[in-house]
């Protein structure tokens, strides 16, 4: 299968995302430039982390209007898979692909450290290779990661199982101290109603190698791969 990694001016985690695909799961990956109108027939689009447009105005606010985003939105509307990581999550929310918004961390500081997140749903093409309630160790590195949405949206996300990952302690408990940025309900990652667009603040592409501390990001990519293969057969 083929992955498109979108590059905006200021994207930093594009190379890490490419390597996650080519080395992590041995699939084809190409870069798509923000000015292009062509996703090169990719099956999955990754919006990588970084500081697109310097996070000017609001993180992701300007990137969402790039020419390539029209193609990404069309791809998502057709049911194509989109994975938004960190700045990618911010862009997806600004573009309306996902509900809510990401605000400045409650501590007002950039936070870079490994955190624990709990898998809340395995009923998606992104998480089917995890176990329900599995605790993962994945790095975060962001200054604007506080997930916010109005009460109705939060209820809907919870009620319909669209919360995919939640910040927890090493023992899997949802506590304030386990929440690195003040996100509502410790939400670290969500999926849209159709189940094809995932947004998450932690970096699974940085958790694919034991030498770097964790391989807990790998099942996310293998889930995407296996779901795609299963879909291709049917």
């Amino acid at each position, binding site marked *: 299968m083929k992955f498109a990694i979108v590059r905006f001016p200021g994207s930093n985690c594009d190379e890490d995302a490419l390597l996650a695909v080519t080395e992590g799961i041995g699939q084809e990956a190409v870069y798509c430039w923000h000015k292009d109108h062509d996703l090169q027939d990719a099956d999955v689009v990754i919006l990588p982390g970084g500081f697109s447009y310097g996070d000017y*105005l*609001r993180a992701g*606010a*300007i990137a969402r*209007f790039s020419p390539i985003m029209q193609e990404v939105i069309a791809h998502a509307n057709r049911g194509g898979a989109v994975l938004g990581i960190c700045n990618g999550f911010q862009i997806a*929310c*600004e573009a309306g692909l996902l*509900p*809510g*918004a990401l*605000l*400045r*961390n*409650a*501590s*007002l500081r950039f936070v870079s450290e490994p955190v624990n997140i709990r898998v809340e749903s395995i009923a998606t093409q992104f998480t089917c290779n995890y176990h329900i309630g599995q605790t993962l160790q994945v790095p975060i590195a962001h200054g604007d990661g*506080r997930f*916010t*949405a*109005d009460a109705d949206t939060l209820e809907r996300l919870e009620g319909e199982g669209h919360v995919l990952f939640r910040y927890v302690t090493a023992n899997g408990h949802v506590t304030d101290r386990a929440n690195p940025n*003040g996100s509502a309900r410790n939400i670290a990652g969500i999926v849209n109603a159709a189940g094809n667009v995932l947004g998450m603040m932690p970096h699974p592409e940085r958790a694919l190698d034991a030498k770097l501390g964790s391989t807990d990001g790998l099942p996310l990519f293998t889930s995407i791969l296996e779901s795609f293969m299963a879909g291709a057969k049917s």
Partner: protein
Amino acid sequence: MTRFRIALHIVPRRGILDPQGKAVSDALHSLGFPGVQDVRVGRFLTIDTTAESAEAARQSARVMCEKLLANPVTEDFEIASVEVS
């Protein structure tokens, strides 16, 4: 066409936690302003543009805010002034 200068305020919605506002409020308290109840920290933009009329300029500004300048989930906007420049 006339040249206008539009001044806009973008502020965090009421109900959204504004940690920056809280930090500023705490700092003001420790500086000796115990009466300070609440602080909101937002953005102030000035836009120099041409339009047919002040009303048209105001309307453009509204659309700019709705589309780009303010995030409807978390921010409110206010057009502070529209002046011929």
